[in-house]
């Protein structure tokens, strides 16, 4: 009996330990490979604390090809976020306020990128552009429409969830009865209350764009993932170091977003949304 109890207690801990090993071991291996000046074959437990250096990473960071590809990726990500929000915010609001019957259709359209593989997308779309506007495919910004389609599910879902949590119809009606025009309703009521959703959508879109490889490779664009794939051959330590750096930065960014989200969720509480709740 006591043994059973002991096993019952130890199980959850064991699970957590396994999970930690599962996630941390590759990261640690990555870090050792990237930041220890020791041939991979002789990496062992006795030289764990020896000859750590960030020279490899610095070499990569100093590479003009790196800064170029980073700036391409950031610019493309920025414009993708703009295009997506510009398209999806009015669409999602319209679906919720005026045409709830169309919600299913819009939702289906937004999940198409899950169904259509990127290769089919690129072949189809680039074929069209090549015949009508070949100059567009030459520009790095030709990635924007592709990435907008890829990130559409995240943007729609994020906005959809945010809107569902609000009693949107009533808030809009209340604002209108108080004298607010449609544009005022948009700026003073809808956007402030959808702030968390907008940040979430932008963040998810950003990460999709910064990690996308297939389309960039097919269209021969020098984005960050393309650079990293190439650098793995010429400067493997630096490329892995860079990968690790991006992981850390993304984690920090994600933590910041969830802090904002937490702050917002204290100001937008389910209590004042639900009809029929007693005080």
């Amino acid at each position, binding site marked *: 009996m006591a043994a059973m109890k002991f096993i019952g207690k130890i199980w959850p801990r064991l699970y957590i330990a396994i999970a930690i090993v599962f996630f941390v071991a590759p990261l640690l291996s990555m870090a050792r490979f990237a930041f220890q000046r020791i041939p991979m074959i002789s990496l062992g437990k006795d030289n764990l604390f020896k000859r750590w250096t960030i020279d490899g990473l610095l070499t990569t960071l100093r590479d003009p090809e790196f800064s170029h590809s980073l700036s391409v990726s950031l610019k493309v990500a920025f414009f993708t976020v703009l295009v997506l929000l510009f398209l999806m915010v009015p669409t999602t609001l319209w679906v919720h306020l005026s045409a709830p019957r169309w919600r299913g259709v819009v939702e289906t359209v937004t999940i198409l990128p899950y169904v259509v593989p990127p290769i089919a997308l690129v072949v189809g779309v680039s074929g069209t552009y090549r015949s009508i506007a070949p100059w567009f495919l030459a520009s790095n910004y030709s990635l924007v429409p592709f990435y907008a389609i890829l990130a559409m599910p995240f943007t729609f879902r994020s906005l959809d969830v945010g809107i569902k949590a*609000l*009693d949107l119809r*009533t*808030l809009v*009606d*209340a*604002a*209108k*009865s*108080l*004298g*607010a*025009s449609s544009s*005022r309703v948009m700026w*003073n*009521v809808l956007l*402030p*209350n959808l*702030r968390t959703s907008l940040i979430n959508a932008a963040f998810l879109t950003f990460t999709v764009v910064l990690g996308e490889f297939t389309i960039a490779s097919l269209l021969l664009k020098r984005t960050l993932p393309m650079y990293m794939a190439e650098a793995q051959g010429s400067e493997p330590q630096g490329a892995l170091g860079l990968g690790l750096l991006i992981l850390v930065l993304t984690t920090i960014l994600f933590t910041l977003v969830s802090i904002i989200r937490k702050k917002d969720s*204290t*100001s*937008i*509480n389910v*209590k*004042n*949304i*639900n*009809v*029929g*709740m*007693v*005080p």
Partner: protein
Amino acid sequence: MSALEFVNVSKSFRDVNALSNFTIALEQGELVSLLGPSGCGKTTALRIAAGFETADTGAILLGSTNIISLPAHQRRMGMVFQSYSLFPNLNIRDNVAFGLKVRGVPGDARKKRAEEMLDLVRLSDLGHRMPHQISGGQQQRVALARALATEPHVLLLDEPLSALDAKIRVEVRDEIRRLNRDLGVTTMFVTHDQDEAMSISDRICVMNNGVIEQTGSPRDIYNNPATSFVAHFVGSINSLPMGSTRVLIRPENLVLATHDESAHWRGTITDTTFVGAFTKISVVLDNDNSSVSVLAISAQIDRNIEIGKSIGINEATR
């Protein structure tokens, strides 16, 4: 001239007539309830007045101006909804000041007015709180203050008490009545709750299937219902045989016959429910098996009123 008048307003959704030739005039300062079961068209009427729905035909007169084609934000109607509808991103004071802000009232005047309004609903110390930090009843009072801050032509209330629990409901109800009297603001109140309508209204407009069944004072509606629907919907009523027809009599207008009295109707007691000052006695009539309830003053009830006993019923003499 009326403060607000509906003239032959009709509205249908697909093939359902939500409102047919709806005509009613509200006098300045009057509180009129639209009372009826769900789907009777009362909320549609209110939303048409607010400008959230467009009428198919008819006119809405504000004074002598027809506002039927005016967009909602230009109508100056104060509206309070069933769900509390405070803007979650603004604190209480800014919620109250919202209507003034969009009308371009400068900051200081806005703040002063918002404080005044919060004072009016006795929540002046909660101005800095966020909506989720106050109770439902308080939120609804803030919603009232917000709707009244812009001095609307008419206050439109769409089931504002339905989301509140019983005790708070009475408090907010009394608050609405007080504000209506003190400020003299014409008020249209939509509800499906007859007690609510009875206790708050100058006049009640009972609706069913998109048409008005009767409009009158609460007393009038209760004592002289114009249609069988009104008689059954407002209060409870018994249908008793009298000769070849049937008569409708309220439970409190029936009395139990004493032993030596001759009784108009005879029946068997099936249930007695003690509700404090009154006791409800359910009887099944001997000659046609219809159920009748009699509301008697508890203190006057004979001790041997028991289930299964035969009893005589008479109409109370007024």
